[in-house]
């Protein structure tokens, strides 16, 4: 499992984090998060080059994305609309006019030595991201804005031992990524805990993936986030001095970096010191942040409207069309699962995040009327088979109707759990109706007391030694005897009933 994929390992496994008991401090954590998300377009933001990860260096390039003299940018409307959809999914406003600005600074992987971005008129303004905590409570974080910009190229530094710029003798730049559309989501400082930070990021990711806005793969750099973090005494209204943490490459490292930075700032404040406003980089191996640049070294980016580009206009009808195209959103699905169907948050997340699982679940549970039993099969046997065979559940032989039938048969105790498991494995491959197979092959559970008694008598007679052991007080052998009853009944005996009958016979005074 890759470190991201929504696979944030929860608090208990965050062993590398510094040993500080955050809860015991007197400080409230205040965080805002800036996310850079690469948009999933066919072509780059301002030229016709492919937007593709993993090509040979400097193959998806042209005069425009290389910033050659005389080349001009032409905006990709598909990227603009994807971003606006992302904003609309969180209830953002779409201003009628938006514009592009230049952010000026020199850097070797920036072809024009300015980046086309948006300064004071972003494509979307406001909005709110809702998320669920593990305990079933609901949190939220307001969005400040979402704006569009172009990505830079990627430098690699050669000749140094660790691939860092210090000590390197030369650098190579790959411009395949230069000009890829990037949306920057800026949040308000509403986040108060490490867990909420991760839940917020997962909510963003879930929505962007569902909308087809982005792949959101942190390891490919299609999601990058910076966390602004400050502490303040509980009850204080002013914010404390913040630091900006960069360079996290998974949700797990975001959580670790936050924990580390909380610990660092806490110890500074507790020893009477002052936090310095600065940008800090997260070092995954060291498990700590280190200073990158201070406020005094901050760039003056000399933003001004890009004269090569005209304003972006959105008529109310454009916005309505895009809003219409959103469809049902993952947060609405989560709400249904958690509030209506009373599923646990973790189960609800797994269903919403799995490929096609929500629609499958909704169909199966709709027929069976039994959400929890449906989920148990879906996240149990069916997900295991999906992993083993590398096939999504919805394309297996087990249709939602079949699953609903199976849930019904189990719930009515017509079949026992072993039969159910066997049936799922069989139907996964062959397809078919569980009810029909059970009827045709007599797989129904043996629940008739007389019939069970007959089998029990047979087992007791054939296992005299074990019967003696039981009666001598070694009651653990009961499991073995139940197993023998199951075996003798061809797996069909109702195990609960079998055990009850066995106990009755063995415990009876003789």
């Amino acid at each position, binding site marked *: 499992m890759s470190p991201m994929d929504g696979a944030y390992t929860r608090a208990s496994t965050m062993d590398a984090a510094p040993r500080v008991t955050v809860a015991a401090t007197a400080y409230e954590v205040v965080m805002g998060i800036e996310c850079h998300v690469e948009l999933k377009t066919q072509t780059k933001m301002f030229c016709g080059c492919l937007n593709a990860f993993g090509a040979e260096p400097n193959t998806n390039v042209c005069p425009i994305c290389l910033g*050659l*003299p*005389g080349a001009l940018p*032409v905006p990709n409307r598909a990227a603009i609309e994807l971003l606006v959809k992302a904003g609309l999914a969180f209830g953002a406003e779409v201003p009628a006019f938006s514009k592009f600005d230049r952010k000026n600074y020199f850097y070797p992987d920036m072809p*024009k030595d*300015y980046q086309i971005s948006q300064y004071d008129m972003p494509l979307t303004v406001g909005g709110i991201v809702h998320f669920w905590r593990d305990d079933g409570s609901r949190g939220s974080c307001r969005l400040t804005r979402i704006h569009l910009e172009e990505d830079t190229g990627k430098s690699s530094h050669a000749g140094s031992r660790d691939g860092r710029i210090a000590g390197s003798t030369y650098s190579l730049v790959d411009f395949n990524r230069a000009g890829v559309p990037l949306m920057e989501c800026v949040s308000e400082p509403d986040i108060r805990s490490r867990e909420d930070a991760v839940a917020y990021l997962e909510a963003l990711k879930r929505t962007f993936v569902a909308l087809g806005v982005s792949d959101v793969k942190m390891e490919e750099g299609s999601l990058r986030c910076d966390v602004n973090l400050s502490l303040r005494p509980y009850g204080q209204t002013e914010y404390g001095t913040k630091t900006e943490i960069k360079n996290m490459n998974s949700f797990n490292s975001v959580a670790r970096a936050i924990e580390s930075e909380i610990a660092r700032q806490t110890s500074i404040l507790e020893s009477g010191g002052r936090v310095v406003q600065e940008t800090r980089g997260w070092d995954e191996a060291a498990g700590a942040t280190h200073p990158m640049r201070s406020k005094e070294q901050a760039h003056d980016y000399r933003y001004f409207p890009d004269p090569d580009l*005209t304003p972006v206009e959105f008529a109310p009808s454009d916005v309505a069309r895009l809003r219409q195209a959103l469809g049902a959103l993952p947060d609405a699905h989560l709400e249904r699962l958690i509030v209506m169907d009373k599923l646990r948050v973790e189960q609800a997340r797994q269903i919403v995040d799995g490929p096609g699982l929500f629609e499958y679940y909704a169909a199966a549970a709709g027929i069976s009327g039994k959400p929890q039993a449906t989920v148990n099969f879906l996240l149990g046997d069916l997900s295991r088979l999906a992993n083993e065979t590398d096939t999504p559940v919805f394309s297996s032989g087990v249709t939602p109707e079949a699953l609903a039938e199976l849930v019904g048969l189990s719930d009515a105790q017509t079949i026992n759990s072993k039969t159910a498991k066997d049936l799922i494995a069989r139907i996964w491959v062959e397809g078919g109706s569980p009810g029909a197979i059970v009827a045709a092959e007599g797989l129904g559970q043996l629940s008739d007391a007389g019939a069970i008694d007959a089998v029990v008598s047979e087992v007791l007679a054939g296992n005299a030694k074990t019967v003696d052991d039981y009666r001598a007080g070694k009651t653990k052998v009961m499991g073995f005897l139940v197993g023998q009853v199951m075996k003798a009944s061809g797996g069909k005996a109702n195990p609960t009933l079998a055990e009850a009958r066995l106990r009755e016979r063995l415990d009876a005074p003789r």
Partner: protein
Amino acid sequence: MADRSAAEVARAVNARETSAVETLEAAYARIAERDGAIGAYLALTQDLARARAERVDAAVREGKRLPLAGVPLAVKDNMCLEGTPTTCASKILDGWIAPYTATAVQRLIDAGAVPLGKTNLDEFAMGSSCENSALGKTANPWDRSRVPGGSSGGSVAAVAAGEATLALGSDTGGSIREPAAFCGVVGFKPTYGRVSRYGLIAFASSLDQIGPIAQTVEDAALAYDLMAGKDPLDATTVDREVEPAAAGLRDDLRGVRVGIVKEFGLDKLEPDVRACYEQAYDDLRKLGAEFVEVGLPTADYGVATYYLIAPAECSSNLARFDGMRYGLRVEGPDVGATYEATRAAGFGDEVKRRILIGTYALSSGYYDAYYVRAQKARTLIAADFAKAFEACDVIACPAAASPAFAFNAKADPVSMYLMDYYTIPMSLAGLPSLSVPCGYVTPAGSDKPLPLGLELSAPLFAERALLGIAHAYERGTGHARAKQIPTLADAVSAR
């Protein structure tokens, strides 16, 4: 041959009275004869020109008719032409070969024009005399002790000296119109957004516009019609129908309302220059034009406004020339030092001055006071023009306050900046504007007459009306081709 107009050359080549190759050879012979004295070209593109001329001839033999068949074309060296060095007359682009062709250049080549070479300019088009070129000196064909004007000095001198039939220039604050006036040719800047800037190396993106330089208004209209129109590669081109200007040329000015700008009174000019413009206004009247006085109360802020906006944009546009990917690189101990050493060695003083002004104007703390206020002033200037055009169809004024000046006469940058006093306001407003020859003055102590240019400017997108009016003036006065350039015999013998 060389003094025929583009329309005449194309007609003759299409009629197979001559060939594109013969026309090309004659043009190169003229360049060989004269350019040593003039210095219009930075580089000749002989192989490309020959190949294009042969293709034109083949097409004509197949019965095709091309609107610019075989027309020898000079291209200002801030426009990309695939496979040829493109320098902007700067050391910083040393060795860079353009891998693609600018849209405007391509459209003329597709129409049959044959690119002879790349012409000199003030470095990155920043200047009004061509003296800021880092790569060569261009002389005014009328008096070689004088500048040709700038920044499109090379293209203008090439047409004036008969070293090209047609040329392309770029105009940011007057860079086509002022040199056209100085060299006695027609120079036309279309409405901003009419002609694609794709492949034009940017100086100030919101002002730069490519336009034709020609011997006649008819040729300018012909080239404009071919270049104008939406380009999917330039987001600032306007998607609006282009009414063919060549079909709207007229011979009289009956019913035309000519606006004379109150603030541009001729009393500030030298008496002989003033007399020449008074004569030009009289000529317009004789052709049937009515005169109205219009006000441009904010026009006086034009130069100051321009010298904030244009440098601000240039400071960003020229950032990419950093020695990392192409052109000159002067190695330093680290990346920052390499940037500094490269740019210190690669840019001339005027370019550095404008980058510094622009960087300052965009800096935090100064942005509102300079850049934002300049944009507000620009809006007011455009509004003044819009109001003026309620009362007139075209505005007439001098293209420059004086004829061509001597080399080194404007050492003070501000006196050079003021050369564009009459052209900058129209650039800020994005208007179509041109300079057409309107007479000659001979400075005291000289025997060499120097041309003057009448600037005519029209409302946005009124190119067809503007060129029609300019054509009537040109026909009615005959200034455009009235005189042989007196220095040419001298230039030939000077070799």
